[in-house]
């Protein structure tokens, strides 16, 4: 079975615990306004690799994973290639490698895949359908999350914060409300919007809605994270 791969980051430190081999798959059904990997949108064939080719390479990096690290499959949207990712994760588990899936939870088969997934990085796009549609142009149903809950999959929640759009307390409180009902949440990460993708959009000749947006203030992120952490009165 072949996976359609955009790129590989052999020592990722931001997508899951520890040092991680991050595979960015090609193709995404969503068009998030803040997306910083627009080069992964198109589902056309990019770099095709078999599970065994990929495993040969991953195993070379196993020493670097230590006790916490492992592999993360990101994208694009990995659920678009869930059969491939399932096979890959199966092989990783055989080799005692921690597996992490970075997803929006949109579409795609996932029941079998989640059996071999140690951790889901669940990107909550919006706090309600309207918000989600504004951000992604689609509405994401709860199927994926329901399966995670049924299988007791560990979850890290991620949510992108943009200055002037959703960096307000009302928004965060609603997010908090939404997350409250999700179990097995080990960590919540508010991801600060950054403008580093500007050049990518220019090169790809895609109109970037946020091209004039400033980077999110990191102190503000800290405040909002504190707000998320405070117990309800």
């Amino acid at each position, binding site marked *: 079975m072949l996976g359609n791969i955009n790129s590989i980051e*052999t020592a990722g430190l931001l997508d899951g615990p520890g040092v991680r081999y991050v595979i960015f798959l090609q193709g995404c059904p969503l068009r998030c306004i803040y997306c910083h990997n627009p080069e992964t949108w198109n589902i056309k064939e990019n770099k095709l690799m078999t599970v065994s080719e990929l495993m040969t*390479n991953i195993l*070379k990096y196993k*020493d670097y994973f*230590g006790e916490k690290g492992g592999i993360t499959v990101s994208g694009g949207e990995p659920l678009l290639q869930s059969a491939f990712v399932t096979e890959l994760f199966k092989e990783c588990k055989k080799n005692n490698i921690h597996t992490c899936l970075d997803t929006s939870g949109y579409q795609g088969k996932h029941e079998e895949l989640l059996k071999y997934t140690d951790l889901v990085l669940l990107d909550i796009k919006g706090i309600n359908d309207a918000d989600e549609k504004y951000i992604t142009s689609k509405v994401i149903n709860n199927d994926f999350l329901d399966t995670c809950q049924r299988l007791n999959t560990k979850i890290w929640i991620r949510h992108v914060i943009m200055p002037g759009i959703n960096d307000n307390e009302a928004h965060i409180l609603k997010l908090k409300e939404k997350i409250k009902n999700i179990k097995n949440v080990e960590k919540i990460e508010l991801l600060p919007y950054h403008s580093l993708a500007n050049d990518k959009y220019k090169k790809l000749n895609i109109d970037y809605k946020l091209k004039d947006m400033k980077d999110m203030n990191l102190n503000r992120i800290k405040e909002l994270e504190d707000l998320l952490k405070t117990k309800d009165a």
Partner: protein
Amino acid sequence: MFKGIKWKEEINVEDFILNNYHEYKGDESFLVGPSVKTNYVWTKSKELLEKELDKGILDVDTDNIAGINNYKPGYIDKDNEVIFGLQTDEPLKRIINPYGGIKMVYSALNAYGYKMNEDVSKKFEQYRKNHNDGVFDAYTNEIKKARKSGLITGLPDAYGRGRIIGDFRRVALYGIDFLIQQKKDDLKNLIDINEETIRLREEINEQIKALKETQDMALSYGFDISKPATNAKEATQWLYFAYLASVKESNGAAMSLGRTATFLDIYIEKDLENGLINEEEAQEIIDQFIIKLRLVRHLRTPDYNELFAGDPTWVTESLGGMIDEKRSLVTKSTYRYLNTLINLGPAPEPNMTVLWSVNLPENFKKYCSYISIKTDAIQYENDDLMRPMYGNDYAIACCVSAMTLGKQMQFFGARMNIAKALLYAINGGYDELTKELVIEGISKIESEYLEYDEVLKNYHLVLEKSAKTYVDAMNIIHYMHDKYAYERIEMALHDSNVKHLMAFGAAGLSVTADSLSAIKHSKVKTIRDENNLVIDYIIEGDYPKYGNDDDKVDLIAVDIVKKLSSELKKHKLYKNAYHTLSILTITSNIVYGKKNRLYSRREKSL
């Protein structure tokens, strides 16, 4: 007093350490800042270092010739110094050492506006042949051509070879008397006379003389090092005198220290336990020792310094490392050594090198990261890879080469420019810069577009022929270096039946791999001059590039290294040395690249 039996019966520092050291798994909170005395000495030293930086060199002793006991005692600030001894009678005053080659001394002195004492230079030239002269009496035409064109380069044929690490701890642990007695015993067993034993008998007797000179030199500072050191300050002082003797006598490109922190920690722990010193005094001893190491200098030509972007001495100290999966050799003094980078500020020398293992204590790993982030002054080497080859008690010379302390020595092997070798494979052994024939018996490649198989076949032939030339050069160089510039004190601090490693090197691997990859995976068109020599290339299409974890090109690199290694091993080495091969990474590659007409990667690989 100290535990263990074996080390008392024979020279065995490793056994002493394993029986007596205390592993430290805690954090850095016990560390203290510099003492008042240390601050005085270091402030004075810094003033001198600034002056030196302005002038290039602070001063040279042009009247005396390098030697263990050829200089009067020197001080920085005698009342505040805790560890004593300088290379000459004044700090940062450099030594002239014509044993490796007198031409280099003249050009260095000339560059800085000094002149050698005429009487000294006249006598030396009249009565003493040097290493450089010896080498050129023996060099073949092939070697001279390969040397001139830069195919083999950076050869230690005009100055001290370095890379030898004396086991300086032996002087502290045993005292000079015992070491001399051991050497005398070794001589008693060397009675089967042949060329090898004649040479060794002479060498050992030279070693004994050097040990005596070291003892006299220490005595000139008021210390009797004939007996073992009895406390931490003495152990550090004795050990430093041994190292100091070596940098008075020799001026090798790398004059490394070895692995001293855990050894000295045994004495420090004992003194702390007995209430003889407190933590401030323990740190003071180490700080002051490190100050001395920071002031070691050799007289070099300005272009030598340009090569390394500095004035390097490669006083490498190896820190940490493991004994097995559970026990590390990290002690409180390992921390104290790294703490000097805080107390005295960051510095490239001594070259603090952590022997890294996944199993090192977590606290120590964190401290290393902290110091690295703060100072950028730690070099890391992989203990898990080297320990199985070199045992528990090895150290790094310079930046890459490991050897078991006191048991192995290294013949510094410079490097072969394997990218240049590829150009010879294409141009039939002719140099595209000088248009001269450097390697005979290589057919020219005449086609407009390069064929991978044809180029590779020629390349293998070039490597075969160059490997022989390279080995010949190294054998001559080290034969002559032993004869005319033998490192008596460093070798005295080795076992008499020392194992020799000959450390060959290859530069330009990534460029070569990229070039061959381009020929294999895309089309490479040749541009020729009026002599029909290829002087430029046009690459049509893309190709896998080295450094991206792509086996299509990485395996080419592996094959080149294996081929070169096996070719080198076909040739017997001086003193029955073992072949080792380093792939040179960053240092000096750009400089050596200038010896090729085309060397920049990516834009143009060939």
